């Protein structure tokens, strides 16, 4: 038992050391750090989606909306009504969880493309609401003046402080997720991924597990949402549309489904890529599309699958030598 816990903890510890070293490695280039901070925020959503899609086998095309609900809630609570930050952030994550619970109960009875369509419909309705409820959300032009985070006397006002805050959160969420998938719950989720009827006949309450993982992944999106709103101090509906939901799914798949590490790698890769392609102006979109196609054609198990294939290849070579 002890050694298996250690085997899980060691990579996470190594990961966090890498996080701590990153600003130095990038010689405090704030442009790169801001890209990584954004990637970290998105990685939190992707980890939740990974639990839902990769482990439990349930698709959601509405996660961008859940992310947005949390971001707007904390924005409205703190900026419009002047509640303390902690209240705003808790109500952001809390409301997201409640919405996921209410939507999830009926919707998770659906399967495959029908579940995709239902979550997509939910996402679009929320997106349209963000655009049209102008007195509450500011409409298409966005919501400005969201306060910066502060704890006690310390204010998160530098790029570096947000980088550490976000990536520490990523690490904590990663630990929680790894713990979950190696537990009884994780095995139940994988069982219902393989066949929910077989899982049911083994005594697993399929409906309850699906709902649990859906709400949990929504709460991850909620955590990302409050970090996003206070980091940028500005939110607009265009960040929470269908396109972003598709990008999230792409990050899960590109990283490798059912691999949390792959998900983080996929997120950082896909968030950073457009920045490096910016030099090619209009070519950027085409290159993004082509990379998606080629990755799926030649790396169908995602980046995690590619790496393990590479490791296997190197091992075989070494074994022969």
């Amino acid at each position, binding site marked *: 038992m002890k050694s298996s816990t250690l085997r899980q903890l060691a990579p996470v510890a190594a990961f966090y050391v890498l996080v701590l070293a990153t600003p130095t490695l990038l010689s405090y280039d704030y442009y790169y750090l801001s890209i990584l901070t954004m990637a970290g925020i998105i990685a939190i959503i992707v980890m939740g989606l990974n639990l839902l899609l990769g482990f439990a086998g349930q*698709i959601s095309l509405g996660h961008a909306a859940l992310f947005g609900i949390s971001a707007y809630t904390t924005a409205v609570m703190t900026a419009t009504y002047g509640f303390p930050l902690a209240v705003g952030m808790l109500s952001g994550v809390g409301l997201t969880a409640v919405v996921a619970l209410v939507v999830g109960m*009926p*919707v998770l*009875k*659906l399967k495959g*493309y*029908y579940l*995709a*369509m*239902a979550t*997509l*419909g*939910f996402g*679009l*309705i929320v997106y*349209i*609401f963000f655009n*049209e409820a102008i007195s509450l959300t500011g409409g298409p032009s966005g919501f400005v003046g969201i306060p910066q985070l502060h704890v006690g006397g310390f204010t998160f006002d530098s790029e570096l402080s947000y980088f550490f805050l976000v990536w520490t959160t990523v690490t904590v969420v990663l630990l929680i997720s790894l713990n979950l998938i190696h537990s009884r719950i994780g095995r139940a989720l994988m069982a219902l991924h393989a*066949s929910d*009827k*077989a899982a049911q006949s083994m005594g697993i309450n399929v409906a309850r597990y699906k709902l649990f993982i859906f709400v949990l992944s929504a709460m991850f999106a909620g955590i990302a949402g409050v970090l996003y709103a206070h980091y940028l101090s500005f939110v607009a509906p265009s960040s929470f549309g*269908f*396109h972003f939901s*598709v990008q999230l*799914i*792409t990050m899960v*798949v*590109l990283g490798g*489904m059912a691999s949390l590490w792959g998900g983080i790698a996929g997120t950082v890769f896909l968030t950073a890529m457009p920045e490096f392609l910016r030099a090619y102006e*209009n*070519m*950027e*979109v*085409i290159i*993004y*599309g*082509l*990379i*998606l*196609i080629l990755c*799926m*054609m030649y790396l*169908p198990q995602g980046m995690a699958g590619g790496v393990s294939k590479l490791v296997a290849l190197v091992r075989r070579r070494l074994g022969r030598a």
Partner: protein
Amino acid sequence: MDLGTFLQFLAAGLTVGSTYGLAALGFTIIFNTTGIINFAQGEFVMLGGLLAVVFMHWLDPGLPAAVVLAVLATTIVGLVMERLTIRPVQHTSVINLIIVTIGVSITIRGLMMLLWGKDTYVLPAFSGTTPIPILGATIAPQSFWILGITLLVLAAMRYFFSRTIFGRAMLACSFEPKAARLMGISVERMVMASFMLSAFVGAVGGAILTPLTMTSYDVGVLLGLKGFAACILGGLGNPFGAAAGGLLLGVLEAFGAGLISSAYKDAIAFVVILAILLWRPSGLFGAPDTERV
């Protein structure tokens, strides 16, 4: 509501619904032969309209010829897409194939933006723009073109799938690819044909709608989503149910926009679809789920 207003909403709904219906038909043609939901379907609709504008501008061959050229070119795009991106990855999971189609859709959109810019364009109406008064409603002549051509395409597809050897061979692949192969049907060729047909019907929808609603490089996203919604509404896997779902979705939207709120028009459509999904997941015209362990 008086009869004139009712007819006005109905005509507006059926007109836009035709395009949703043709997009939905395209979705089901590919879904039936491959099990893939092709997220580039909306791009076929966009190409139908935008390429007609491009051909008008470059070659000035007259409107009918430009429309025909655009539809043919889009059909070839469907062929190329299948050859380059679908055929090489046959043995992969469905979700990976979906991501491939999303990649194709992003690439097509990016190419059109690069070639033709981000502006909005319109095609001339097929036979003038003088509205025709009918029972208190005034209806654009283009609406009649749209409905007529849509019904013609639907009838042609019906004939193709039920009466021609080729169409029946495609249907056979959708029921049981292995048995179809044993009967000497080339499943590969049928998959290719399904992409071409689906691009064809999508492009027709886009080309005939453009004189009324305008087009730009990014209209495919929402048209594709509405087509997908129409499929689910009508029943995934039932081509003519999906087309009917498109018409119904268009009508619901038009009445919702007119009677409730035009700002929430798209939301109304999706609320209805959510309700129907929860009440009858297999769609209005789909067979009830008979899945067993």
